[in-house]
């Protein structure tokens, strides 16, 4: 009987095979190594690392984060060590991990995006790049490309040319019609699409009569955004021919299964890593348990169950 067999949790993002659909979301999982004391990182389908830019970035002034109902706002501003330091200092230790390593990349210009991708391409140890054209917390680059289809297409075209690695494009929810963005990045040659990045939001400290975040607005994440994310993944999956990776407010396996049933091939766990550093592993176990209980043999059986 199928129910007694170990379910097959593996999924395929194009030619990239993952042992299970559970990935981590960029900016919430550091460089993955920080989580080794708390979990067996190799049990994850893939790890997605903190956004990398060509040069090191200082990030935004504090305060950079604040709690909101069922979520949080952040305006980190992509503080990172830069792609060269990453390749020298972090990658050697990541290489030995028996899981997929996805580098999240960012540029202020199209040339920078392509250059970061090119350097990662020639460094051994990265399986895919996730192109962040959807960060709301930087003045240049990021969302300024991700909010219009032609800008998005230009970035993806340039990255596509710069690397043979799997190219995943990360979309913003801050657009009128996600399907237009999906088609634009597909035509530009992306291998998969991940969504959503954070939703622009704002909180005010009424005692001090000023915004809580130094940048005034920030990106909202966590369960508060999940219904929006599920809806957008569902819309994107119907419009797309490439695989979709669902992100937004996933805390447990049931949340992850919502995205899969909405049409996502894989999911990324973000803010939940802050609530419990072992969240992502709990999602892996929970999905297995669901499959066992319900006689589901492969993830494919339930992918896009709701259409």
């Amino acid at each position, binding site marked *: 009987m199928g129910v007694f067999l170990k379910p097959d949790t593996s999924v395929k993002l194009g030619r990239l095979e993952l042992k299970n659909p559970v990935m981590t979301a960029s*900016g*919430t*999982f*550091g460089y993955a190594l*920080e*989580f080794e004391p*708390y979990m067996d990182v190799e049990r994850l389908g893939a790890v997605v690392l*903190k956004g990398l830019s060509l040069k*090191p970035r*200082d*990030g935004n*002034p*504090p*305060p*950079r*984060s*604040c*709690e*909101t*109902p*069922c*979520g*949080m706002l*952040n305006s*980190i501003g992509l*503080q990172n060590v830069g792609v060269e330091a990453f390749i020298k200092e972090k990658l050697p230790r990541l290489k030995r991990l028996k899981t997929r390593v996805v580098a999240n990349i960012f540029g202020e210009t199209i040339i920078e995006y392509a250059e970061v991708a090119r350097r990662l391409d020639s460094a051994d140890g990265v399986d895919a790049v996730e192109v962040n054209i959807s960060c709301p917390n930087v003045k240049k680059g990021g969302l300024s490309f991700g909010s219009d289809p032609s800008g998005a297409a230009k970035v993806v075209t340039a990255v596509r040319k710069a690397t043979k690695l799997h190219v995943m494009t990360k979309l913003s929810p801050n657009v009128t019609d996600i399907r237009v963005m999906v088609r634009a990045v597909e035509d530009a040659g992306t291998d998969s699409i991940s969504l959503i990045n954070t939703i622009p939001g704002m909180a005010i400290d009424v005692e001090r009569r000023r915004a809580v975040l130094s940048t005034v607005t920030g990106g909202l994440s*966590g*369960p508060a955004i999940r219904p929006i994310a599920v809806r957008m993944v569902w819309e994107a999956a119907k419009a797309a021919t490439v695989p979709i990776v669902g992100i937004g407010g996933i*805390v447990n396996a049931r949340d992850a299964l919502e995205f899969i049933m909405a049409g996502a091939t894989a999911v990324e766990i973000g*803010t939940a*890593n*802050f*609530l*419990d*550093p*072992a969240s992502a592993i709990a999602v892996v176990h929970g999905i297995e348990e669901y499959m066992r209980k319900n006689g589901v043999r492969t993830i494919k059986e339930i992918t896009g169950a709701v259409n």
Partner: protein
Amino acid sequence: MSSATIINNSRLGGRFFRLSLRWKCGGVLPGQFVMLRVSNSLDPFLRRPFGIYDFSGDVLDILYKVVGKGTGMLSTLAPGTDVDILGPLGNGFPPAGKGKNPIMVAGGIGIAPFYLFAGEVKEGKPSLFYGAKGRDEVALLKDFKSRGLKLNIRVSTEDGSIGRKGLVTDILKERLGEDSVVYACGPAGMLKEVSNIARKRGVKCYVSLERAMACGIGVCLGCAVKTRKHPPASAYRMVCSDGPVFNGEEIDWGCF
């Protein structure tokens, strides 16, 4: 990320509470902290950071002040309740070194991390200068006094109800010797002032900082403070993983 069981959770007076948890860990350093989930639901959403007050084998103590929703909920939890705990986290206070006299300067609930630290001071003549708003806060000193430590305790209250009337920094200015090393924990304004006083006298000063935290383990980059470091090094340091204890001179106080 492990579970701890509440042994005791009682009010010390005013809005101050002491929480005792049965919890096993490999050991803690004075000045480190833990992150607690005060509820099993997603409200409040994030963990709350608390300094370690005392630790002995398998009992962890925390001293806390009710200031909002999370600490309010914490204060209602009964003995026997399990709470999710992450830690010990952060760096802790470095020792003062040979021939140095440690001076601990605390404001209000900032007294918490010094109980463990005072117990571990092996050298020099340690002092504790405590700035309190009034009687409720002075009550937090009881344990320090009953412990039989060779600790020179001086108190100031803003209302003059106990000890000297005024600010704790007034005491520090009078009693800071060149052979001192200062350790400070309390409101940012006090820390800045303490740090300035120490710098002017050429005395080393460590400050324990607070920031709203999400992850507690250095990955969200949310709890940044600005330092006087210049490029190519990033000017920002994380309170949870680079601190919470910093050399006061390194901090750019404009960010508070």
